């Protein structure tokens, strides 16, 4: 990913910068790196991000970056649709919003008006909130984005890593589909940081994901992170109950030693009803044409399908990973 005036649409050509954001280190670093980009000064990121009638799908083809200062709500409580992985309280922080990858099933579509990538540059204000958190909490800091995948655009990890180390009583999760192991070489593993890799069958990657690394590359990244000493979580989420996963699970655990994993996340495709309806109006993706049911305002697979598929899947996963380490949603 580069900032360029070339005709390739997958380049960030424009960076919107909030007036207030100019004074921050991340902003200077990004603007220095992308000095040939079109920089547009803005008063408030919402003037760009919250415009009505934006085309989320088209904007994915022409990603742009917004650098802004977050004023409040640095941490949100995780919803019932998120996994807490046994932590007594689960939160997420949106240092960045939106993602350079393009997954048809992504929960971010229908959630925001825009798919432009927002980076909040006042990392220290997030850190103040982390410092106030009670012991035993978990914060997903790559929740509405993919931190590691964006490292070459905005190196957030460089700015947040020391704060993670300082708040040793809080567990931080960085979820990713990126296979970029080079990023990790700059950081030492710390006890309260979990790298969570989402693994998906290659067939699903080919059918429903764009720009994400292939399965082998992700498996390699998992092993690399383990070798470096990081705590690694593997997430099988979302699982599509009507697709074939058995061979995939065998394939993964032939290549990853399950006993080295910190834990496993496992969950079926789910989306709030209103959000699903919003995406359904514009999508052409088969993901949204599957036979789901509505359960308490959430669109997902029927209980029978979930029961039947999870039994088969967990039988295989359970052979490689301690059952207590498998978190199911």
């Amino acid at each position, binding site marked *: 990913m580069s900032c360029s005036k070339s005709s390739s649409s997958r380049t960030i050509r*424009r960076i919107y910068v909030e007036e207030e954001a100019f004074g921050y280190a991340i902003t200077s670093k990004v603007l220095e790196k992308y000095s040939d980009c079109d920089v547009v*000064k803005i008063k408030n990121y919402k003037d760009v991000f919250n415009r009505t*009638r*934006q085309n989320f799908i*088209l*904007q994915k083809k022409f990603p742009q970056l917004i650098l802004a200062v977050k004023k409040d709500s640095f941490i949100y409580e995780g919803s019932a649709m998120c996994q807490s992985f046994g932590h007594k309280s689960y939160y997420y922080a949106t240092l960045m919003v939106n993602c350079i990858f393009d997954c048809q099933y992504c929960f971010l579509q229908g959630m925001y008006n825009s798919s432009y990538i927002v980076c909040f540059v006042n990392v220290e204000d997030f850190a103040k909130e982390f410092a106030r958190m009670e012991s035993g909490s978990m914060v997903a800091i790559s929740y509405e984005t993919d931190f590691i995948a964006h490292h070459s655009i905005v190196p957030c990890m460089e700015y947040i890593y020391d704060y993670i180390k300082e708040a040793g009583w809080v567990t931080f999760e960085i979820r990713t589909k990126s296979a970029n192991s080079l990023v990790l070489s700059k950081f030492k593993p710390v006890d309260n940081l979990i790298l969570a890799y989402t693994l998906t069958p290659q067939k699903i990657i080919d059918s429903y994901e764009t720009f994400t690394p292939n399965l082998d590359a992700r498996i390699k990244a998992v092993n690399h992170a383990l070798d470096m000493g990081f705590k690694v979580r593997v997430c099988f989420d979302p699982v599509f109950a009507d697709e074939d996963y058995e061979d995939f699970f065998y394939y993964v655990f032939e290549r990853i030693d399950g006993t080295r994993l910190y834990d496993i996340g496992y969950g079926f495709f789910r989306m709030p009803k209103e959000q699903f309806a919003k995406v*359904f109006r514009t999508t*052409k993706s088969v993901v949204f*044409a599957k036979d789901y049911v509505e359960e308490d305002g959430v669109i997902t697979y029927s209980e029978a399908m979930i029961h039947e598929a999870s039994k088969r899947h967990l039988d295989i996963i359970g052979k490689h990973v301690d059952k207590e380490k498998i978190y199911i949603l």
Partner: protein
Amino acid sequence: MIYIHTALSIEASPLIDGFKLKKDMDVNEFQVFGNEDMMMIISGVGKVKSAMALSYLFGKYGVCEKDILLNIGYCGSSSDEVPLGMLMLANKVVDMDTGREYFPDLFLTGYRQRCISCFSNVVKRSTENTENIFVDMESAGVMEASYKFLYPHQTVIVKIVSDYLDDERKDVSFLKSLMTENLSNIEDIIKQAKEIAGMTKGLDMAEEYAMLERISENMRFTKGMMNLLRPNVRKAKIKGYDTIGILHGFLDRKSSSRIERKRVFDELLKKLK
């Protein structure tokens, strides 16, 4: 449809000649010119007139996702280091009366992109500060209408530098030449904008929904039944089913009773699943 907005006849006339547009004699409220795929309106000077003209145009002719809107006009530059005739596209428009900022989603390549400051009055360089700004009197009105009717990627604000905010009067032929010299750029901008708007093409359900309505009239489907059928037709089309063929088989069915209606409804739903 390619919608073009200009404020002045002097801006419009090179475009009328270049694109071979004909005056629409049925429209009296504004001067409107067009051909099969282009329609141009001359609004008069100012953001209010611009917003009004575009609302008129969109209201009268309708607007869809494949349409694009270009505001083409002259702008002033506070710096005389910028050459006259330089073409730029607005990446931001500021309404200098309200301070409101507008952002077209500009995905075109190959052209300078600048912020346009939209004033209600004629601006003189001596009365403003020395910051290098580009000034016009319409763009905020165009963007206001655009935000109402279009997606932000459908609008392109094209400005050609015609003066340095000074008192020097430019003659008509010189001003026209600035526009004429940029005609090929404008053609390219239109081509790019059309391509981008074309990328958004969603699933065209018009034919299926029209057929479903006909079936519903014959069968007297309830609102609830239709609310269930519509998304299922869409899902079936996404899955690649021959939805037209399926619906065709139900076009001549008529319901004689509620039981028959329910039976046909279930049969259609089953075929779509």
